[in-house]
């Protein structure tokens, strides 16, 4: 199917260069919140906006990494990763809502405002436990993971592959979006969650909180890159690439294809969920719009632009496409969708290996 793709890990000096570039990029990013503390008239001062938007992009990069792991290495093109991201976001959102406590508009000691408004008497059972941070983080991984396990098991077992799997996952996120729009789901319906006050005792929307969330995201990004790199270089990673390129052959060689795919799909979903959990406190809102199929497919194009099956490409794509989006939506909002659509066309037709492919071609 995609025999034209490059081998996943560039060898020798190339790999060293990539490591150095990555290390440099991480250090540079790590400097941002510190530069934010410089006085505003300093030449090196970095605005709040830059810090918060970069923090957001880092969580996008983790999502892109998760997609790359499934798509670039195992050939599973999920058009529903936005759903895993959003579920993670909802999990932490529930925690943040519980932390508001009696400070809501209605001043109810336990119930969030929207529940008081809708006439709830008690907290629904699935909200129990979310007042504990570790539990919320656990759920941000477990719920997307469980969903991916069920969908993946059903799909991979009956050998639904390629575009069929893409359509099924898209239908999954679409169905979830419809479900979360309902008020009686107990997730705030249309409006979702917002008006968060604090996280881990630290008031949100302060420079400290921004910096903390930024570093947490960066740490997760580094950890995910290391984990993904470890997996893709292992024997497991080689089997995954083999499944991507010739699934039937791998099956006939005696490998359990379903289990391999399931493992990588669930891991990828959990990673996406964690990314969502870091995203929501930074943007301060989560609503069902996050489930829209368009979000998921936009995340896929980050990976395609950067170059799939390389991990670095996913990061590069997430940052560059989002930088383009931020710039274009302020300069010429009408043009952004043309540009995004154009990216889809241009990358698939002219840059099948993405930006990374461009570099590796010129350097070797």
């Amino acid at each position, binding site marked *: 199917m*995609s025999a034209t793709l490059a081998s996943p890990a560039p060898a020798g000096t190339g790999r060293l260069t990539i490591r150095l570039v990555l290390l440099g990029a991480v250090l540079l990013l790590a400097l941002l919140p510190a530069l934010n503390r410089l006085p505003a008239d300093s030449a090196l001062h970095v605005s709040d906006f830059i810090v918060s938007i970069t923090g957001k992009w880092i969580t996008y990069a983790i999502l892109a990494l998760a997609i790359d792991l499934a798509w670039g290495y195992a050939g599973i093109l999920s058009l529903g990763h936005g759903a895993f991201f959003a579920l993670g976001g909802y999990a932490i959102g529930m925690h943040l809502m519980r932390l508001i406590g009696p400070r809501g508009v209605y001043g109810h000691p336990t119930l969030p405002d929207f529940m008081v408004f809708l006439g709830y008497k008690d907290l629904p059972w699935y909200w129990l436990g979310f007042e504990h941070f570790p539990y919320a983080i656990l759920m941000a991984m477990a719920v997307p993971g469980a969903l991916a396990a069920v969908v993946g098991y059903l799909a991979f077992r009956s050998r639904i592959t*390629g575009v069929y799997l893409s359509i099924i996952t898209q239908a999954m996120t679409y169905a979830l979006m419809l*479900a979360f729009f309902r008020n009686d789901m107990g997730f705030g319906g249309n409006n979702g969650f917002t008006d968060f006050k604090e996280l881990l005792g630290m008031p949100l929307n302060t420079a400290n909180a921004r910096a903390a969330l930024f570093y947490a995201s960066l740490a997760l990004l580094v950890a995910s890159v290391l984990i993904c790199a470890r997996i893709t270089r292992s024997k497991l990673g080689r089997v995954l690439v083999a499944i991507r390129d010739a699934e039937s052959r791998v099956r006939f060689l005696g490998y359990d294809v379903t289990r391999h795919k399931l493992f990588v799909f669930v891991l990828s979903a959990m990673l996406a969920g964690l990314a969502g959990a870091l995203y929501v406190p930074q943007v301060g809102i989560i609503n069902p719009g996050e489930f829209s199929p368009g979000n998921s497919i936009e995340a896929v194009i980050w990976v395609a632009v950067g170059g799939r099956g390389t991990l670095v490409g996913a990061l590069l794509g997430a940052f560059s496409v989002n930088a383009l989006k931020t710039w274009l939506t302020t300069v010429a909002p009408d043009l952004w*969708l*043309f540009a995004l*659509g154009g990216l889809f066309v241009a990358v*698939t037709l002219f840059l099948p290996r993405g930006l990374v492919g461009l570099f590796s071609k010129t350097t070797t």
Partner: protein
Amino acid sequence: MTRFILRIAVFLLLALPARAQDAFTGALPGLAGGFGEIAASVERLGSLGDPRALPVLRALQDGTLRKAADGRLLVPQGTGFVDAATGQPADAAGAEAVRLNNRVRQALRGALGRLQLVSPDAAERGAAAEAIFRSRGADDVPLLQAAIRREAVPEVRAKMELALAAAQLVASDESAKREAVARLGAAGTVEARALLLEARATNPGMATAIDVSIASIDRTLSFRRAAETLFQGLSLGSVLLLAALGLAVTFGVMGVINMAHGEFVMLGAYATYMVQEFCRGVPWLAPWSLLLSVPAAFLVTAACGAALERGLIRHLYGRPLETLLMTFGVGMILQQAVRLAFGAQNREVISPAWMQGTLTLPGGIAVTQNRLWIIVFGLIVLALVFAAIRLTRFGLEMRAVVQNRRIAATMGIRTGRVDAMTFAFGSGLAGLAGVALSQIDNVSPNLGTGYIIDSFMVVVFGGVGSLAGTLVGAMTLGVVNKVLEPWAGAVLAKVFVLVAIMLFIQRRPKGLFALKGRAAES
């Protein structure tokens, strides 16, 4: 013999109003007397059921009825007055107004209500029957019977019969009561059911007969509900069918996944809008605008499809995931282009008169005309697609290229041209779906996105590459959706259907109508 009968009939027809007029003129002078006489006269006029009494009583109610010195009654007509008895113009000089008291007013209200049963306006007669149905008194029975004999409009007649049954139910006549119970049972409406329940409490002796009638009403009502649900399901199914037919060609036959298909549907709807706007300037064309927009939408979207296939998709054959992403991007661009060109707000496409309104089928099943036509349109398009694939040279070449591209090429078929034609054909079908959707949905730039996922589900569920599967898949999904809706809500019904399809694919990964043999291998 027939002549004789005709003569008798004509004589009777002439005689009937003449006799009524006698009674009418006989009751008139009372209106010129004291309050007691006026009230008695009003009651008599009301129960006569003569249409001539209506303007007189109305004038009395409005205070414009005049009493001349010689006792003649004058009714205002236009700018002057006419004699109430003869209808001849009369001079109102020196005439004084007839005055009212509360007793007369009360009598007037009842009389006017009953008299509306003979009003020349059918809607007024229907309203009067409904009013009697609600108020119902035993003394309305003869009046209703007379009105029913005269009534020519079936709907109004049905209402009157229902009102008669309701009136008979409170009358003392036992056999009339039983008849009324049976008739209410046959009427099969919610109101009749409520009436019977009420009567059951006051007539313990007739409980069994009433229960039978209520059970019969319940049967009728549930049958009607089921039939209407089925109709709604089939109508949703035919919308899905139209949207999925194009996919059945591009995805099912060619194996090209086109995520911009929904945008082609949207373009078809906008083409319909453009044709309508064009026809607005040409009066004699206006009634035909919808019919004209069928070929127009097909050609516009087919041209877009051909351009997309030749320009972009053909470079990605054999790479389905890339095709998916690329066409998604194209869809995004099309949507944004339309949004900039036409604005984000909804555009209104007006349905022609013959598609508006509701049709009531026998058994009281109400169906909306536009949805009925969409079902018809969907089936016609399905038949045409079937004919195009099975019976035409183009269809033969198309199937040949799909089955074995190289051998088809060696036989002299220009495979590239066939690819473009096939894709254009499938896209044109999306345009036809757009024409249909413009009649029932908002024409807006994101019209197609709501249908694209469902249409893919139809194709996957029905079996890729099978038209029969597409038909059965679309109708099944439509009906199941509508059956689930009442107790699960529209949104949850959709979620259930999506989950059900995923589970279904577990059992039959190739869909309902799986291709067998060699075609399934590729």
